[in-house]
């Protein structure tokens, strides 16, 4: 195999579907990063006289109910949606890996307790967990982020735990022990690095789900608060205007769907490239 030449995340680009999906994702991320450079409009300045315009040369995707450029808001919305779900999942992965690794490592009652709690929460729909948490924390970006990360905690804890447990029985761990390796060495030099790839790939796939979750929270009016745009918030606002100005809900919906499909395709390509299908055993 010659794959070692490319860093792992880039290897998915070697498959046609992976390249297309990766291209879209890169474009979305770049657009979100350089949003102010890409569009002459502001996301929050209202021009009420220009409200409800369909797509035109001036406003490529039309304007919303406040006369704001929809494309601009979509691009800024990508910022919110991607960063909220991205950060939330990163948080979730960090906590989930720690928890899962600790459970697998220490075993005993701690492991059993973690397993029971995690299995129980894993059995609840993420949206319900997130809604409960947002109700507790209060609406807004931070609340959404925390809620999403807790909602996915169980998934990563489970996955990490399972990974570490299988890895723990691998002979190379025993081999390291036979050389005199201590716990820290085994955990940080063998177990975690090996568990990382599947966890990261599933984190990436979960980011797609988190975008949908963020959009759904936005639909309940609980995500980013106006005028900051998020895809979910835009759809939520647009749902009441679906007859009057369907483009207001259609474009953010498309953005979500296409991006999430792209994430999934890219993830699949990555799984195939990294040859970790057996270890992924996606349950979601």
């Amino acid at each position: 195999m010659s794959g070692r030449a490319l860093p792992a995340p880039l290897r998915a680009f070697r498959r046609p579907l992976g390249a297309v999906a990766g291209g879209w994702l890169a474009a979305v991320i770049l657009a979100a990063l350089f949003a102010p450079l890409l569009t002459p409009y502001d996301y929050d300045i209202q021009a009420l006289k220009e409200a409800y315009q369909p797509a035109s040369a001036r406003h490529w995707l039309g304007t919303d109910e406040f006369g704001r450029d929809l494309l601009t808001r979509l691009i800024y919305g990508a910022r919110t949606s991607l960063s909220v779900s991205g950060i939330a999942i990163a948080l979730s992965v960090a906590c989930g890996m720690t928890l899962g690794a600790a459970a697998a490592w220490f075993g005993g009652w701690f492991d059993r307790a973690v397993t029971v709690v995690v299995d129980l929460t894993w059995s609840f729909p993420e949206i319900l967990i997130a809604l409960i948490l947002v109700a507790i924390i209060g609406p807004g970006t931070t609340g959404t982020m925390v809620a999403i990360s807790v909602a996915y905690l169980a998934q990563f804890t489970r996955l990490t735990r399972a990974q570490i447990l299988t890895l723990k029985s691998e002979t190379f761990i025993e081999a390291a022990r036979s050389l005199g390796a201590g716990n820290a060495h085994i955990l940080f030099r063998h177990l975690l690095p090996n568990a990382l790839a599947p966890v990261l790939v599933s984190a990436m796939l979960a980011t797609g789900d988190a975008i949908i979750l963020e959009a759904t929270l936005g639909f309940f009016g609980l995500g980013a608060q106006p005028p900051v745009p998020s895809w979910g918030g835009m759809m939520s606002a647009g749902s009441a205007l679906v007859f009057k100005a369907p483009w207001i809900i259609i474009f953010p919906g498309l953005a979500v769907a296409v991006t999430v499909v792209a994430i999934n395709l890219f993830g699949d390509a990555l799984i195939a490239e990294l040859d970790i299908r057996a270890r992924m055993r996606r349950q979601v």
Partner: protein
Amino acid sequence: QEAVFVLNTSEVGAPTYNPIKATNLNKATTLLFDRLVSQAADLSYHPWLAESWEEAPDGMSWTFHLKKGVTFHNGEPFTAETIAKWLDLFKGSENAYMAEAIAEVQVVDEATVKFVMARPEPNMLYNLSSSYMSVIEPKSFVELGDNYGVTEVYGTGPFKLESFAVGQETVLVRNDDYTWGSPLAKNTGPAKIEKLTFREIAEDSTAFLELKTGGVDMLFGVPADLLAEVQKEANLAVLTLPGQDVYYMPINVTKAPFDDIRVREAAAKAINQEEILASVFGGVGTVADTFLISALPESKVSDGAKIKYDPARANALLDEAGWVMGADGVRAKDGQPLQVSLWTQSDSIFRRLTEVVQAQLKAVGIAAEITTFDSSMIRDQYKTGEQQLAVRSYNWDNADIVDWFFGGDRLGYPNVSMFNDPKAEELRAAAMTGAKNMEERVANFTAYHDYVLTQFPMAPIYQPVNSVAYNKDRLVMPEPLNAADVGAIAIMDMEVKD
């Protein structure tokens, strides 16, 4: 004959049909209960459960002659005794103010009752015609306690409660014994429709789709932005009634920086009502520049008290109060940015309105951060008193709503502005209890209203018209509609086509 109506989104989630304890009642209440007095479209008062009445010249007593042969849904008779027990229940309740002026209820005979007044109450008939003074059956009311209005309800109304799932739907069935309808309706009973379902649909667009596809027969409130869509449909008709709503922005006078009246005034005058009318409400309805609907005489306050868009004044006031405009367009004082919270409820029209308000505040340098609450819970949130600014609306057609929303004893909710001003309390007492007749009452309330406006505990925004949309192919609306809105009177005459 069956019909399905959709309640106004502002009534969604009303937890009970207990008129004495509730602060939020939905339309179905008016069909479960009758009132002593009915009010016509021209706001004149007409008999209902009371066949006639006399007011003593000094206003210190009222005598009501009651209809005979009226029974409650549970078979209990409706008599003078009932009235005495009923009014007694108001003491200490949420809606005590409704009957506060009545010192004593004397049962003259089976069908005659006399209210001995503590003070003259020019608003007596209005109160008696409001749904909060729906006549309940006192025996079951006491027995059922908190369950009254939730699991069981007994009134004298043209419909009986079959089932009530809070937030979902209420099913009413016809009271076949009903013969005592208001004379304002052609039909005094029983009703023509046999079964009525009131659905609560939080999403305006869903409700509209239901109407459009024939899933429901009538929407009690059509949001302005859907009006055009309704009008496009051949099978739908819109009934435009005088509005009783006012959209406004309460300002919490206890929370800095709004403890400074200059900042309050600035915020109030930053609101461009015309722009909102045009852009959010499509030009339907009128702007509001006082707290009361313009149909009320008490809304004729002095010109100076009217709150109108005046950005120059708003900016000047903020400058004066020491809030200096920053480079980012947000004012600041002592390094603190002028950042405030702006609460709203999740219904789409509120969200849209609030977003425009936010932009308008920003235009004078006030950065408002929106927090959206579910409409069913926002009242509870106000009770915490944590709000600074909010966008809300009320629906009432009497000046005493000023007392309700700005009375110093109702801080939090309904007094969202937390307004508690000694002078206002004085004026309020005069308005609520000091008038001997209607003229005095109007004068007192106008003064009270006028003063409240000058303290800027809120900014008036918009007065809609009341648009009721219904399916022409299904419903026959009575002509003319002898009431200010589509309620018990209209429904008595309403028919369902098969």
